[in-house]
C-alpha cells in the first residue's frame, strides 16, 4: 500500500483543504468548480519543485523503458485497437446510402412536426391530428380532391327541403377494423357521442346542432337537427366508430383504408393497410405507414435528405434547398389555412376596432410572403382561403393595403399616439408561423407598436390560447374542418364555443344566422360572402395569407394529391413505376 511510504506530515499536507476536519466527507474532490466541470481536489502543481525532480527521474526511467516493450505501449495499442474497432463497427452498422432506397416501397415514413393529441375524433383539437385520422376513420360522406362530397359509409342520402332532416342509406358490407360490420346502431351511437362531447375541435362542436338520430331500419338512419341547416352535409365526413369501442383515444377503430397498428408517444404512429376496406378504387397501396414525430423543426430538410423520412407536407421554404430534386418530387399547393395575426378582441387595446384596423394598415402580406416563403403564397383578406373558390373573395385583400400614415392616425385617434406593447404567442412546432411573427414584429415597429414574441409548445398553445383564450395576439393558421362555409365562419359568432378571438358583432351574428337558415344556395352564398366582408371590415383579425405548401415526396413513390381542406389521403400514394 502506498501509504506507508508517506510520513504523517506529508499526508497531512496532502489532505489539508481536501477534506474537512469534521463532517461532510462528501467532498472527495467533487469541488471546486460548478457542476460537472473539471474537478481538481487540489490543484495539480504544474511547476512546483517536486514535479521537476520527479520529471528528471521519470526521464531517466523513460529512457530505460523505451528499450523495453513497456506496458504503456500495450495500453496505447490496446486503446487504439478498441477505438478503431468501434469505428469500423459503426461504419458497418450504418446504412451508408442516403435516401431510404434500402427500405423499398413497403413502408412510407411521413414526418410530422408535432405529436398527435388524441386519436378519438371526439376529443382531438389539432388539425394535424385530423390529417392522420383521415386515413383511419371514415364518415358517411368523404371529400375528394375536387371538393365534392362522395358517399362513403353511406351509399346515398337525402336532405329534407328545410334542411332539418338528413336521411342516409347505409352501404352494405362496410367493416370496421375489428372485423365487425358497420350498423345503424354504430352510426347513431357515434353521432350522438359527438353531440354530447365537451371537448374536441370545431368539427365536433358542430354536432351540438344535432337533436337526435333515428334508426329507421337496419340500413337507414335519419339525423334530425335542431334547426334546419342545408350546410350540414359536409360535417358528416366525421368518422363513424363502433358502439362497442371504449378507449378510442388509445385504440382507435374506424373503417378507413388504414388501420391503427401502434403508437409510441413522441416517436411515431404506425398504420397498416386495411385489407377489408369496402372501396377497391380507394384502397391503400402501401402496406405500412409510419408517422414520425420530428421534434426539431430545423432538421426537416436534413431528415428528408438523409432518407429517414419520405414525405413531408409543409416543408419550410428555407429548408427546401437541402432536398434534392433528383431524389424528391416537390408538389406545390396551398396549405388551405387562413393565417392571420389573431387578436383577442376582448382585451385592450384590441377591443377598439380602430386599433385592429391600424395594425391591418401597418402590415404588408406580400413582404411576409417574400421573407417566409420566397414570395409564394396567396393573400387572404378574410376567413376564407383561395381553394374554396365558391366562397373566396379576392377583392377583400384590398380592404387594408399597407398605409403607414393611416395606421398612425388610427392609433392616435384610439389614444395610442406612441404605439403600445403586446405579446404574440406562437407555436414553436410551426416554423412558418414563427417566422411570420418575426416579420410582423418588424412591420409593426414602423408604427410604434412593439410585438413581444413568445414561443409556446403546441399543447400549451391549445390549452392557453385556444381553450382558455388567455392571450393578446397570436399567429396561427385556421383550417376548415369540413368542406363548408360554416367551418370557417361559425367560430366568429359571438357566443360560439370556439370563438377564441372573442369577436362580437351583432351584424355578423344576424347575417350568419340568416345564411344558415337560407335554403336557396345562391342566397346562402351571398350571405356568407357578406359575413366575410364584415369580418374584413371589422377587422376581426389581421388576415395575412394562405401559406404555400411544399410537399416533398421521395421519388420512389408517386400519387400525392392535394385536397381543398386539411386532409391527407395516403391511400393514393403508390410506388412509382
Amino acid at each position, binding site marked *: 500500500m502506498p501509504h506507508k511510504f508517506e510520513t504523517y506530515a506529508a499526508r497531512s499536507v496532502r489532505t489539508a483543504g481536501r477534506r474537512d476536519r469534521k463532517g461532510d466527507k462528501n467532498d472527495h474532490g467533487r469541488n471546486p*468548480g*460548478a457542476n460537472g466541470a473539471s474537478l481538481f481536489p487540489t490543484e495539480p502543481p504544474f511547476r512546483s519543485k517536486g514535479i521537476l525532480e520527479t520529471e528528471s527521474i521519470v526521464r531517466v526511467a523513460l529512457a530505460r523503458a523505451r528499450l523495453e516493450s513497456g506496458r504503456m505501449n500495450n495500453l496505447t495499442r490496446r486503446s487504439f485497437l478498441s477505438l478503431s474497432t468501434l469505428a469500423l463497427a459503426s461504419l458497418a452498422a450504418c446504412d451508408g446510402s442516403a435516401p431510404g432506397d434500402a427500405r423499398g416501397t413497403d413502408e412510407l415514413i411521413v414526418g410530422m412536426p408535432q405529436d398527435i393529441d388524441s386519436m378519438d375524433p371526439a376529443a382531438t383539437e389539432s388539425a394535424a391530428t385530423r390529417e392522420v385520422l383521415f386515413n383511419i376513420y371514415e364518415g358517411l360522406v368523404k371529400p375528394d380532391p375536387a371538393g365534392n362530397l362522395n358517399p362513403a359509409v353511406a351509399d346515398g342520402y337525402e336532405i329534407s327541403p328545410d334542411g332539418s332532416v338528413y336521411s342516409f342509406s347505409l352501404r352494405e358490407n362496410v367493416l370496421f377494423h375489428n372485423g365487425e360490420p358497420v350498423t345503424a346502431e354504430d352510426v347513431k351511437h357515434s353521432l350522438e357521442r359527438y353531440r354530447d362531447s365537451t371537448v374536441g375541435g370545431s368539427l365536433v362542436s358542430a354536432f351540438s346542432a344535432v337533436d337526435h338520430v333515428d334508426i329507421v331500419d337496419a340500413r337507414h338512419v335519419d339525423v334530425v337537427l335542431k334547426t334546419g341547416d342545408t350546410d350540414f352535409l359536409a360535417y358528416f365526413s366525421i368518422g363513424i366508430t363502433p358502439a362497442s369501442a371504449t378507449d378510442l383515444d388509445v385504440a382507435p377503430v374506424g373503417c378507413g383504408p388504414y388501420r391503427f397498428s401502434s403508437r409510441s408517444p413522441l416517436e411515431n404512429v404506425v398504420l397498416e393497410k386495411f385489407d377489408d376496406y369496402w372501396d377497391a378504387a380507394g384502397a391503400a397501396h402501401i402496406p405500412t405507414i409510419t408517422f414520425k414525430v420530428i421534434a426539431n423543426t430545423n432538421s426537416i430538410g436534413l431528415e428528408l435528405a438523409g432518407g429517414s423520412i419520405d414525405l413531408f407536407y409543409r416543408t419550410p421554404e428555407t429548408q427546401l434547398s437541402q432536398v434534392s430534386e433528383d431524389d424528391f418530387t416537390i408538389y406545390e399547393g396551398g396549405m388551405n389555412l387562413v393565417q392571420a395575426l389573431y387578436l383577442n378582441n376582448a382585451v385592450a387595446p384590441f377591443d377598439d376596432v380602430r386599433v385592429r384596423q391600424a395594425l391591418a394598415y401597418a402590415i404588408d402580406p406580400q413582404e411576409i410572403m417574400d421573407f417566409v416563403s420566397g414570395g409564394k403564397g396567396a393573400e387572404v383578406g378574410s376567413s376564407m382561403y383561395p381553394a374554396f373558390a365558391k366562397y373566396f373573395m379576392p377583392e377583400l385583400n384590398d380592404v387594408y393595403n399597407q398605409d403607414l400614415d393611416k395606421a398612425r392616425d388610427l392609433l392616435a385617434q384610439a389614444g395610442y399616439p406612441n404605439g403600445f406593447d403586446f405579446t404574440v404567442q406562437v407555436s414553436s412546432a410551426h416554423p412558418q408561423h414563427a417566422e411570420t411573427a418575426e416579420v410582423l414584429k418588424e412591420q409593426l415597429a414602423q408604427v410604434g407598436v412593439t410585438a413581444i414574441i413568445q414561443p409556446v409548445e403546441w399543447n400549451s398553445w391549445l390549452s392557453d390560447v385556444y381553450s382558455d383564450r388567455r392571450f393578446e395576439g397570436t399567429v396561427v393558421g385556421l383550417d376548415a374542418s369540413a368542406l363548408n362555409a360554416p367551418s370557417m365562419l361559425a367560430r366568429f359568432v359571438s357566443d360560439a364555443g370556439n370563438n377564441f378571438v372573442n369577436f362580437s358583432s351583432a351584424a355578423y351574428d344576424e347575417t350568419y344566422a340568416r345564411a344558415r337558415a337560407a335554403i336557396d344556395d345562391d342566397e346562402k352564398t351571398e350571405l356568407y360572402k357578406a359575413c366575410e366582408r364584415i369580418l374584413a371590415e371589422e377587422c376581426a383579425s389581421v388576415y395575412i395569407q394562405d401559406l404555400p405548401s411544399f410537399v416533398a415526396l421521395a421519388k420512389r413513390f408517386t400519387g400525392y394529391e392535394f385536397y381543398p381542406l386539411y386532409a391527407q389521403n395516403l391511400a393514393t400514394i403508390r410506388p412509382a413505376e
Partner: protein
Amino acid sequence: MRMKQTRRNPLAFIDTLPNPKLFRMGALITAAIVLLVLIGLVWMPYEPTAMSADQMQGISASHLLGTDKMGRDILSRVMYGSRITLVVALGTMVIGAGLGVLIGAATGFYGGMADEIVMRIMDGLFAFPNVLLALVVVSLLGSSTVHMIWALGIAFIPSFTRVVRSEYIRCKHLDYVKNARLQGASDARVIFVHILPNVSGVLLSNLMIGFNNAVLAEAGLSFLGIGSQPPYASLGQMISDAQAYFFEVPTAVLGPGLVIVLLVLSFSLMGEGLRSAAKELD
C-alpha cells in the same frame, strides 16, 4: 506573515504568475470579445433584427459574416447575442457565487445544526444537472432571460457554498483568526475582513470555472429555445435556427459557435494561469 501582496503596477502581477503567457493569451481573447460586446452597445453594422432581401448570403464586404434566412446580418446578431450570453453568465455568477459565498461562509464559520440542514439542502440541489434544474425552474416560472439567470444562479449555489464552507472550516482554526478575535474583532469582521481574502484565491479559480459552465449552460438552454425571445437571439438560439442551412451559410452556425468556444477557452486559459497563482497566494 503578510497574506496580501502590495502591487505598484497593477499589471505586474501577471509576471508573478507561473504561466503568464497563458494568462495573457486568455485575457487578450476575453478582452477582444468584451470589446466586441461593448462596441455593440453603441454601434452595430446593422440592426440585429432588421430583415432585408439579401437572405442567406455568404461572407461579403457588406455583411462580414453573411446573412441568415431572414436577411439579418449575422455579425450584428453575434454582437447582440454575445451580450445576452455575457449578461446571463455574469448574472448567474453574481447570484450563484454571491449567495454561495454568503451561505458557505456562514455555515462554515458557525457550523452546528444549521450547517447540517443547509448542507443537506445543498446536496439535494447539487444532485441535479444545471440544465435540468434550470428547466424545472423555468417550467414553474415561465421562460425569460431574468428567470433563466435566477434558475442557473440557484443551480450554481451549491458548488460555491461547498468550496467556501470547506475553506472556512479549514481557516477558522488558524492562528490569525484567533489573533483577530483576541483583538476583539466581531464575527462579521473576521468573516469578511480576515478570512475572505485568503479564500479569494480558490474562489477566483472556481469563479472562472463557474463562469465557463454558466456560458455553456446558457448556450445549451437557449439552443433548446428557452430564455431569450425571438427575434432577439442568444448565441445558442442562433445556432439552433441556423442548423437547417448549415451547408449554405456555414457562418450562421460557426460565427456564434466560435464566439462561445473562444469565450470559454479564454477564461480557461486565464484560469490556468490563476490557479497556479492561487497556490502561491495560499
